[in-house]
């Protein structure tokens, strides 16, 4: 007599340690094997796009902080780039360099969190996270020195940045840049050769090149699948055409490649910061002359940058008043997780967790 089996349904989240926020997955399981998955988003919806319609262009900047709260600096930059495109504002050179330095620091910090929590999802009991936090703390201290905030910076302004760097910033940054390669080497030494880590992540959750392009994935997730695409090179915004750096790509697009692309990008970001420190003018304005309640001409603009998690875009429609008529956010992680179903089916519950972790999602950005 054959044994009767039935698949059963499991809710992962919205309150679950490994969903990185309030994300919910409805799984259909056959034993431990995932046969179907339905992601349910919206638990962190705060209506940022609608709120933006009732605020002035400067007041929207703190709202963008709350999108990807592990990379607030780049959210600010993306929004400001969009508004500057809309109003045709020229940003002073020194401000551009400050933006680039801060974006790259933010990228290092965000990637460190991604790798740390990815290992946590693999089952390493918080040690990787705490080691990553040690260095992230130094980056946060640098931001704190400049803008007095540690998580939601609200530092960028339309036409530049809110204030110039203090005198002690550059020596502290220099010290960080000198120390960091040693720590990255330490992380690689601890993680890269670990047999259990390799067994868990090599070949797991493969995102093929074609699928990645078809869904419109971006950021490390896309590059890990072997697509050489980085907005900093492909469509250099700001002053990124002045720097010499490589686009890091993976080979097969599994969890290991996504981890390794992030580790390599940290090194590339350090290279960019080093060059920016050399090229940056010592003095000069850091903010274009933009009034507090400025009214951009009626029209529309789409500004986008390469945020740590991918291609982050802001689409702004202006009707000539002090508030935008419509603001739409193009979030990279929401686009990336649309591939989740194809990636996890046939894998086990434990794999689902690490595949989801390797996508590096932040719910603030997905739900907005």
């Amino acid at each position, binding site marked *: 007599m054959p044994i009767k089996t039935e698949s059963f349904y499991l809710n992962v989240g919205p309150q679950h340690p490994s969903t990185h926020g309030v994300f919910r997955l409805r799984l259909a399981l056959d034993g431990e*094997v995932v046969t179907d998955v339905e992601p349910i988003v919206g638990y962190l919806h705060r209506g940022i796009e609608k709120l933006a319609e009732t605020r002035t262009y400067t007041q929207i900047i703190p709202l963008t902080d709350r999108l990807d709260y592990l990379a607030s600096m780049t959210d600010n930059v993306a929004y400001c780039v969009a508004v500057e495109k809309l109003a045709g504002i020229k940003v002073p050179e020194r401000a551009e360099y400050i933006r680039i330095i801060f974006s790259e620091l933010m990228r290092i910090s965000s990637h460190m969190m991604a790798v740390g929590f990815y290992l946590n999802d693999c089952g390493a*009991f918080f040690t990787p996270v705490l080691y990553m936090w040690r260095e992230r703390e130094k980056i946060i201290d640098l931001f704190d020195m400049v803008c007095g905030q540690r998580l939601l910076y609200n530092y960028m302004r339309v036409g530049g940045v809110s204030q110039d760097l203090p005198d002690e910033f550059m020596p502290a940054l220099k010290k960080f840049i000198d120390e960091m390669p040693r720590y990255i080497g330490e992380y690689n030494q601890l993680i890269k050769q670990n047999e259990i880590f390799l067994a868990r992540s090599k070949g797991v959750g493969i995102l093929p090149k074609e699928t990645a392009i078809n869904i419109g994935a971006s950021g490390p997730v896309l590059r890990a699948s072997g697509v050489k695409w980085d907005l900093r090179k492909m469509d250099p915004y700001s002053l990124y055409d002045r720097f010499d750096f490589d686009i890091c790509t993976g080979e097969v697009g599994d969890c290991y490649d996504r981890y390794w692309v992030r580790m390599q990008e940290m090194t590339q970001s350090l290279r960019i910061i080093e060059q920016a420190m050399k090229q940056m003018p010592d003095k000069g304005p850091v903010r274009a002359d933009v009034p507090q309640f400025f009214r951009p001409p009626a029209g529309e603009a789409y500004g986008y940058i390469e945020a740590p998690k991918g291609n982050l875009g802001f689409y702004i429609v202006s009707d000539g008043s002090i508030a935008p008529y419509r603001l739409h956010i193009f979030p990279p992680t929401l686009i990336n997780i649309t591939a989740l179903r194809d990636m996890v089916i046939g894998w086990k519950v434990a794999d689902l967790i690490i595949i989801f972790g390797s996508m590096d999602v932040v719910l603030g950005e997905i739900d907005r």
Partner: protein
Amino acid sequence: MTLLDQFQLILKSQNWPDWAVYLVPALVGILIIISVVLTVVIVYIWWERRLISRFQIRLGPNRCGPEGIFQPIATAVKILLKEDIVPEKADKLIHFIAPITVFVPILLIFAVVPFGEGAILADLNVGIVYVVAISSISVIGIFMAAWASGNKYSFISGMRSIAQMVSYEIPVVLSIVGIALVAGSFSMLKIVEAQSIPFIILQPLGFLIFFLGSLAEMNRSPFDLLEADSEIVAGYHIEYSGMKFAMFYLGEYGVALAYAGIITTLFLSGWQGPLLPPVIWFLIKVMMVFSVIVWIRSTLPRFRVDQLTAFAWKFMLPLAVINLVLIAIEVLVIPTAMQWIMILVNFGFAAVLILLWSKLFTLGGGRVEV
């Protein structure tokens, strides 16, 4: 002659009635063992939290008393004051019995752990077999808890627990047989007395298999799939709170203490050591074993469930069998006085076998077509 027998003789010479001569020393012994074990478990919890925080470049609990030594007591008081919640869909009776079924066998293990020369509650002539038999009972407790909770996460955990225990018991028992062959006895006292050279040096491969197997048996990282908090949140004790949860918590550390004690007895020459009194030596060695366990926990990621069983059947079982055959031949061929030959041969074999198997063996698994 154990301390318990001596106590009985003293009572007999005082003309106590027969039933009292039998009962009183046993009860006193049990009380001493339970209080010592629970105290050491509390020290253990503190030690793990402090040590793991050092591995993780943080301070750990340091507010309650000097170096935070009273933190486990504060935790215990907090847990005692918690509401005892039983889910509506739970099987109430089984839900109640399960923590006891997990905790009691762990206490029973300590009956045959020799804390010092003669300081053993029951010197069974099959001591180590008794340990293997008793410790598998708590698996039933875990499965009962998982099933009775009526929670899907704990259900997955219960399924995992059965697969894990069935797989790992076999290599563990096979490596114990290797010990028994050399010591010529299953009795814990005899095994310790046979170790003029600690068996970790005499049988490195056996030690490795036993150590990894016992990590799996006590659900410690990297085999902590039962409570994998990043996957199935807390596994089988997800629906437990208050004192019932404390039973699981104590049981988890109690079993770690028990296995650390057994590893010390079987492989690290038990209480033997120069200068210091035997009990101190025993506790030092137990703490060393436990510190290694904590070290592993803070370092390694977790196996996946299919890799876990693959590791047991494809890697540990063949090596355990080869180890057993090797030891058996050596015991037959090499005279006792020439044990250094055995050490050389065993270390050579251990190195070659592990290198060879790590090349041959793959964890396998992967995507299942659905």
